[in-house]
């Protein structure tokens, strides 16, 4: 569906994407995980065939965006990071008018719009103004709009940023249903839980480059331990205490507010820490996540 070789994007002197290789297969959910400014959105806009490739090779659905842009865009669904819904139009017209841009006839457009309102669970809001919708509803409408042309490939740029937890889960559920219907999904996110929930395969991006690639499970197995012990001490003590316990785990990360000790047996680490006469304010043993993978690969946390 997507194939990129040495893909680059430069804005003047600034290089947002510095040469990445990506392969996305039909029917999979593929993720770009990385902090803000990693080059995810620039990559997405090149895939969406609206931003010219600076260098390297990019093929979408077997076509070249430089020469086949309109044909590619006709088969894509794009859900941009910032809502680009038309606030002047009502909910139904946002879908209907967008469908017309794809050359879908009026009757089919109305039918599709009605179906998609149901899919997005906003049928009762059909005549409402966009600005009266909640954040979650706006997102669902944006996704519904991106489906108006029955796309082969759906691009979602930070689909749940800014939504409350409940709205996120509703959205995830809908993306699952799309995936099961055979739609290929490409998702960018800086939420590791989202990447773990939704993506079959993902790449971790940092500073315009790909730092690692694989399924969430593979990445965690390859770059982290099974468990992590989180130890919180008093402010300013973490650096000094790290030296005293660094032999207890395979690896230790010092964060401003806590220590992360990587080990396959987290509870044993906590016991050993207490045996050494140290008294953390709080302890937590958890499974490794993509956040830990990211920390390992880049030395920074995703929130930075």
């Amino acid at each position, binding site marked *: 569906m997507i194939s990129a070789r040495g893909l680059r994007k430069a804005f003047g002197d600034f290089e947002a994407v510095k040469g990445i290789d990506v392969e996305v297969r039909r029917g999979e959910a593929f993720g770009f995980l990385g902090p803000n400014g990693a080059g995810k959105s620039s990559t997405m806009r090149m895939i969406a065939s609206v931003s010219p490739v600076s260098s390297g090779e990019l093929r979408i659905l077997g*076509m070249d965006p*430089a020469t086949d842009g309109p044909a590619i865009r006709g088969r894509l669904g794009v859900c941009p990071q910032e809502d680009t819904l*038309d606030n002047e139009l009502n909910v139904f017209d946002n879908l209907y008018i967008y469908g017309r841009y794809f050359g*879908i006839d009026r009757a089919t457009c109305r039918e599709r719009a009605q179906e998609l309102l149901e899919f997005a669970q906003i049928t009762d809001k059909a005549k409402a103004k966009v600005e009266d919708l909640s954040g979650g509803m706006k997102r669902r409408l944006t996704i519904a709009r991106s489906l108006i042309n029955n796309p082969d490939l759906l691009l979602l740029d930070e689909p749940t940023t800014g939504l409350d937890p409940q709205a996120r889960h509703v959205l995830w559920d809908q993306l699952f249903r799309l995936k099961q219907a055979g739609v290929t999904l490409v998702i960018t996110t800086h939420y590791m839980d989202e990447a773990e929930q939704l993506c079959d395969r993902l790449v971790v991006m940092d500073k315009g480059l790909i730092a690692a690639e694989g399924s969430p499970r593979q990445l965690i197995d390859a770059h982290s331990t099974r468990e992590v012990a989180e130890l919180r001490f008093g402010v300013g003590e973490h650096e000094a205490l790290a030296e005293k316990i660094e032999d207890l785990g395979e690896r230790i990360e010092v964060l401003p507010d806590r220590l992360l000790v990587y080990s396959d047996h987290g509870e044993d680490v906590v016991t050993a820490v207490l045996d050494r006469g140290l008294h953390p304010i709080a302890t937590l043993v958890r499974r490794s996540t993509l956040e830990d993978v990211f920390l390992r690969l880049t030395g920074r946390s995703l929130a930075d």
Partner: protein
Amino acid sequence: MASDMASDTGSDTASGTKPPTTSARPVRPTGSLSAWEGMARQYDYWLTVLKRTWRGGVVSSFLTPLLYVVAMGVLLGGFIEGDPDRLEGASSYLAFVVPGLVASHAMTIAVSESTYPVMGSIKWHKTFFAQLATPLAVRDLVNAYVAFVMFRVASACAVFMLVIAPFGVFATWWGPILAWLSQVLVGFAFTTLVFSYSARLKSEEGFGLLFRLGVIPLTLFSGAFFPISNLGPVLEWVARLTPLWHGVSLSRMFCVDRIDWALAALNVTVLVTLTVVGWFLAVRNLDRRLEV
């Protein structure tokens, strides 16, 4: 998921017929729309815009200019008794001022529809970004936008001319039709040029400049209210270089039926040239602006 509009987007012809090398870019990208198709697909959008805005348009397009005609043409003009030679062949000041007023009205509508709304579609509502994620191209967006503004200009000028006709200011029945086409041409030139300016502008402060240093001086000194020969030889030539003067000149010649065909040809050439240049700049500037 089956695609019921695959043939419309040309996607079914894309992969099989593509040449192996991509170094030579085709004249038209695969699946790109004809100019007509590109505009037709945006018809429903602009129809809803029109439905939403026509009420405000009635006031600014029809009522305001009529107030000008009454104030300038009838009430102020009542004090002015020039012989037809000093009024460029017009039989009265009203007959003199009306063709100029309509031409400058065409400019005003074109400019106001191509300033804030263009910035809004880029910056505030991001309409252009949403539209560009479809098979539509930048060129199609510009075409449909200009077509909409021209509908506003053409209809407003037509109504203006029809309303004023019974007052006996037109020398022939066919002259006003050519005058109306000249006013449309003024609209085209200003729409494309101002669109290209707005597409580059980062903040709306630039519009204040455009209105204060562009629109207002042009309205006052392009021969709409008085013959530019009153300006003196130097300023008269400055006025002749402004786009609005060419429109006023055409509009008045046809209305009062004192036509210098060589001058008319020059006026038309200038306005058409500006329109074409403006269109290319508009497409280029919007294309650059939307690449983020």
